[in-house]
């Protein structure tokens, strides 16, 4: 187990190095001079060159890269240009809010996805399976922003049932009830696509497992249908785990449209705002943190996978 884990961690390191190089290059090709935007249009050339030197932007690109990655690894994410504060608390607060939204959406997606997938697999040939299949295909295709706007129009501004923006009420807000009221609509918007994907994957896994010999043998031995289903479910666990990891990772970086529309103060909204303000350190940190979370989730999934299924450890 330990050799398996260390092998997986060793495999993740080159990926993370590659990620950091891609982020660094992407930031370097962003048009616009960060120095000019820091000092404003009235700055003197001397002041500009002094700040360029102080920030190390006149050094060779590989040196800039190693200096940046050195700071990043030590947890120093620099200062936000637009907000004039340290990036780390900004990004971590936003990440925490995204994580809350993501976990809520993941729970919704799993509940709906497993239900739809199970119906589609176990009621094959019946009308309920066809409906389940149609719902999951539809839900995969729904753009986050379309459904988000529909929900706001019909369930927030139209009826006033739910708030249409933010995470807590500005006045008298706070607490679990308030958070719940605010998270329902963005949660549903974010959950639709993963719910459809989970439903389709779960359907094909259940069909595969139900056609295995051990199911026939249990039937022959006269086990109750409920017991058989329980055993079948047990055999879908490894695949479920993989799906869970993928979808959680997808949600972490994929809720940017939902966050923008619902003004949810998460990482997606922060990155979007920083893009409009050309706040490079925040964009860098935001993208790096979500990629890191993505890789970490995959590592955890692999470890859990190896725990429940000894075959993958080989």
């Amino acid at each position, binding site marked *: 187990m330990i050799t398996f884990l260390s092998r997986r961690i060793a495999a993740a390191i080159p990926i993370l190095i590659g990620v950091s190089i*891609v982020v660094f290059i992407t930031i370097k090709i962003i048009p616009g001079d960060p120095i000019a935007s820091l000092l404003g249009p009235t700055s003197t050339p001397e002041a500009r060159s002094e700040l360029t030197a102080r920030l190390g932007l006149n050094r060779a690109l590989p040196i800039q890269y190693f200096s940046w990655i050195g700071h990043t690894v030590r947890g120093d994410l620099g200062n936000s240009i637009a907000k004039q504060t340290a990036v780390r608390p900004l990004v971590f607060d936003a990440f925490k809010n995204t994580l809350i939204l993501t976990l809520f959406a993941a729970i919704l997606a799993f509940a709906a996805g497993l239900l739809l997938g199970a119906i589609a697999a176990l009621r094959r040939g019946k009308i309920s399976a066809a409906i389940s299949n149609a719902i999951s295909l539809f839900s995969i*295709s729904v*753009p986050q922003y*379309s459904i988000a706007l529909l929900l*706001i129009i019909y369930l927030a501004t139209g009826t006033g049932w739910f708030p249409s923006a933010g995470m807590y009420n500005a006045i008298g807000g706070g607490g679990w009830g308030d958070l719940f009221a605010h998270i329902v609509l963005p949660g549903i918007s974010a959950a639709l696509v993963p719910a459809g994907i989970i439903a389709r994957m779960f359907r094909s896994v259940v069909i595969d497992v139900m056609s295995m010999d051990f199911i026939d043998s249990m039937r022959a031995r006269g086990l109750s249908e409920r017991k058989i289903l329980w055993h079948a479910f047990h055999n879908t666990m490894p695949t479920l785990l993989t799906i869970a990891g993928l979808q959680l990772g997808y949600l972490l970086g994929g809720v*940017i449209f939902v966050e923008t529309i619902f003004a949810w103060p998460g990482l*997606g909204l922060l990155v*979007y705002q920083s893009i409009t303000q050309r706040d490079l350190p925040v*964009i860098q940190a935001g993208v790096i943190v979500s990629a890191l979370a*993505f890789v970490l989730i995959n590592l955890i999934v692999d470890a859990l996978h190896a725990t429940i299924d000894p075959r993958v450890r080989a």
Partner: protein
Amino acid sequence: MTATADVGIAATAVAAPQAATSKRRLPLSAKIAGGVILIIVLLAIFAPLLTSYSPTVGSLTDRLQPIGTSGHLLGTDGQGRDILTRMLYGARPSLMTGLIPVAVSGTLGTTLGLIAGMGSKFTRGAIMRTLDVFYAFPAVLLAIAIAAALGSGISNSVIALAVILIPPVARVAESETGRLRSADFIEAANASGARKSAIAFRQVLPNIAPAVVVYCTALIGLSIVYAAGLSFLGLGISPPKAEWGLMISDLQQYIFTQPQLLLVPAIAILIASVAFNVLGDGLRSYLNVRSETA
């Protein structure tokens, strides 16, 4: 001589799955979806014949007319532009940002996947591990970062989308190629002395094509959704041009006063996305492609 042998083997290899699929029919839902896509394409092509209004210049006296106003079937936006006209013209960039990134990433991704699948262990490792780096990013975020880095504009969002779509296409092509590597007809082609590139393009490519085409069809819907999303965030096509995502972003400020106007582009993107996914799904069962890769 090798050439004739190649053709003969390729023909039988392709003929076998076709014989199996001849019994299958394209599901009705896929035919309807194909019809919907055809209608959208025709509306986009013939936009100038279907409307007399300009997509970019409006009349400020006719601002924010509701849906169903005579002369403005789908209403007008905040600048008095006819929304139906903007929808018709806007279908052009929306379709293009769906098709072009998929065509580019489909070609490059398939080529990379073929090279990785047919190549040595080292080649495969180098290509697939490099693509893994792009897998470590959430796709939407990477597209947004690239589009932001390149600056707004429709060609930049096409590039951003092509980049994020290459790795998944390559992965599908590589895994399909891997399944064929030890097939008898590939061994036979190898034994007959055919060059690796000839085997890759004449034997392997026709056999992995169904899986790749099915996968890419569904990606078109995704690409339309992402491209409109980039425009929605102000990273795609620049105003005053008409594009569905940009229209959502324009009309969003009237969500409290004229919400139904906002629904027009939002639902159009939804319909286009559903249509391409239903078509892809229908093609999948028609061409008998395994569903795991979705």
